[in-house]
């Protein structure tokens, strides 16, 4: 059974991996496309230029002006569209541009509010205070100095909206998640819960007898990052675990707010101290390196959001011969943790470690997360099928204003 499974994996892997051919054709095509489009444009312009009877036709004004309040904004913005003067479309090089004139609907004092180049058929008036009625005129100018006005646009006024309809999917998603959270909290927490392997190893490492304090780094991100909050939660749980085994913890913090949070969290909690090192990530990792290379250390735990400094920190640890456990939500740093640390908590595991190790309380979070993942998974699968079967309505449910 096991053997055959390995084989299935191997075959699937080859399927993914052995397609340089596809890749080749793909990239080539894509490149061509982008080039082609460029050429296309040029040829069009060439055509337009070549139209001869530029100056012979009468100078016509732009017509059917559409003016409306720009939707889903804070107000103060009016959008104008119109069809170009025929002289502009055909007689290239005759129309020098357009002027937008605006007046309050009550009065008839039109003032020029903008100058536009030839070929422009829309204008966004970003300076139209809400709830004031305006009317517009588009004036067509020629190089020869004469001009012609369009007729007055319909009266329009801008207004701020209180809600963006295209966000309904987001709201629905949030509500669903909140609801699931609610019912999952009500669930009886199973007493024998399966613990994710790397999290279990983490817990086991922490309760091993240590002569030196464990070194803990709650990432280098600000405290308003979810990862940092999760990391502090995890730290709390780990300390609970190791206190029974008389291990100490030394917390090194880079972000000042996180430092205050850590000190708060460790308040009146023996076996643990928090140190503020430096708000600057580079200097922080410098000081951390020095600490590692000069003081004996057995175990170092780095959890939270980290940028490039992650490798600086873990390399220092491995030079000091420490047993390192690291986790981050920053996808681009995970490979370095994998290659320098004995144990790595990949992405979301970081968020779930605290809940999984907590004796009770919000351990239900694990159930919630699995449910969310399962639902997302199924929705996604349906979506992929749907795309094949052309259920546009379904895919539109996930539309969040992506253009």
């Amino acid at each position, binding site marked *: 059974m096991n053997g055959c499974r*390995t084989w299935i994996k191997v075959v699937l892997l080859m399927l993914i991996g052995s397609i340089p051919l596809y890749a080749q054709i*793909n990239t080539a095509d894509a490149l061509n496309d982008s080039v082609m489009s460029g050429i296309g444009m040029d040829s069009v312009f060439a055509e337009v230029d070549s139209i001869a009877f530029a100056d012979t036709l009468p100078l016509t004004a732009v017509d059917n002006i559409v003016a409306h309040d720009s939707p889903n904004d*804070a107000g103060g913005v009016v959008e104008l569209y119109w069809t170009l003067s025929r002289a502009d479309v055909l007689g290239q090089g005759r129309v020098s541009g357009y002027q937008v004139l605006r007046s309050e609907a009550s009065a008839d004092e039109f003032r020029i509010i903008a100058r536009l180049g030839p070929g422009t058929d829309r204008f966004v008036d970003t300076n139209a205070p809400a709830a004031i009625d305006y009317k517009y005129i588009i004036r067509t100018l020629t190089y020869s100095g004469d001009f012609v006005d369009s007729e007055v646009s319909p009266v329009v006024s801008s207004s701020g909206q209180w809600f963006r309809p295209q966000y309904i999917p987001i709201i629905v998603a949030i509500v669903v998640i909140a609801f699931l959270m609610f019912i999952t909290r009500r669930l009886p927490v199973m007493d024998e819960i399966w613990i994710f392997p790397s999290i279990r190893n983490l817990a086991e490492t922490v309760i091993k007898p240590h002569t030196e304090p464990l070194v803990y780094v709650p990432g280098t991100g600000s405290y308003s990052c979810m990862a940092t909050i999760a990391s502090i939660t995890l730290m709390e749980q780990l300390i609970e675990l190791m206190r029974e085994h008389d291990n100490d913890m030394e917390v090194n913090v880079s972000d000042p707010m996180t430092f205050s949070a850590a000190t708060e969290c460790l308040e009146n909690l023996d076996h643990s101290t928090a140190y503020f090192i430096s708000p600057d990530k580079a200097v922080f990792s410098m000081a951390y390196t020095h600490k590692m290379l000069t003081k004996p250390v057995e175990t170092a735990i780095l959890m939270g959001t980290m940028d490039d400094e992650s490798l600086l920190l873990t390399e220092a640890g491995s030079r000091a011969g420490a047993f390192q456990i690291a986790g981050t939500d920053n996808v681009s740093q995970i490979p370095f943790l994998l*290659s320098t640390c004995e144990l790595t908590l990949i*992405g979301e595991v970081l968020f779930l470690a605290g809940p999984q190790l907590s004796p009770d309380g919000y351990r239900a979070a694990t159930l919630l997360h699995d449910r969310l993942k399962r639902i997302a998974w199924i929705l996604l699968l349906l979506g992929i099928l749907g795309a094949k079967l052309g259920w546009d309505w379904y895919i539109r449910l996930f539309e969040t204003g992506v253009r």
Partner: protein
Amino acid sequence: MNRDNRLRIMVLILGLLAILQFFIPHNTGRWINRFLLDWLVILEFFALIAGIVALVRGQLISLRKTQGNARIYPGLFFVGLAIMIVTGLVGPIAEGSLFDTCFRWFLQPLQSTLFSLLAFYMAYAAFRSFRLKSAPATILLLSAVIMLMGRMPLGERVIPNISLFANWIVRVPNVGSTRGLWIGIGLAGIATAMRVIIGIEGPASWRRR
């Protein structure tokens, strides 16, 4: 009502405000957003002061503990701190100012050199831990090698079409897996955030011991 409940209520209100502002295009939304972010900046400022106070205390202690040449190190800390604060408070901080110069002559080369060390560390990490130990390790190794070869001009001359393959890996499987990770991280983050707002995780939930 006891203190913890008061804390929970404040957390709930601020959290809901922060969610709400996202859905309000009206100026009020912007106002709320600006307000909350100002709130954060102010807190960060004070937190930083507190942090520096803690630093100074620590340095003073080590200054008292150590004697002889070792005293120079905490001393240097105070020198550095003084330099920046004085130059920053008296003069301008724009480009060319004394403050900026101190930064450029010392902190900036320090930072960039430190991050350039990563090249060495990565090489060593690759040498030591990219081994054909297991199937996953092998895949990691292979895609890393393909990337290294594919994303350099001379790579083409070593292995033809390698860059196309590398690009394909970046564009297709890499995108897929990253998305998978992101969806998971997103969901986990949302759940954590909700737990923080209703006060079963984070500061509002810390027990007083």
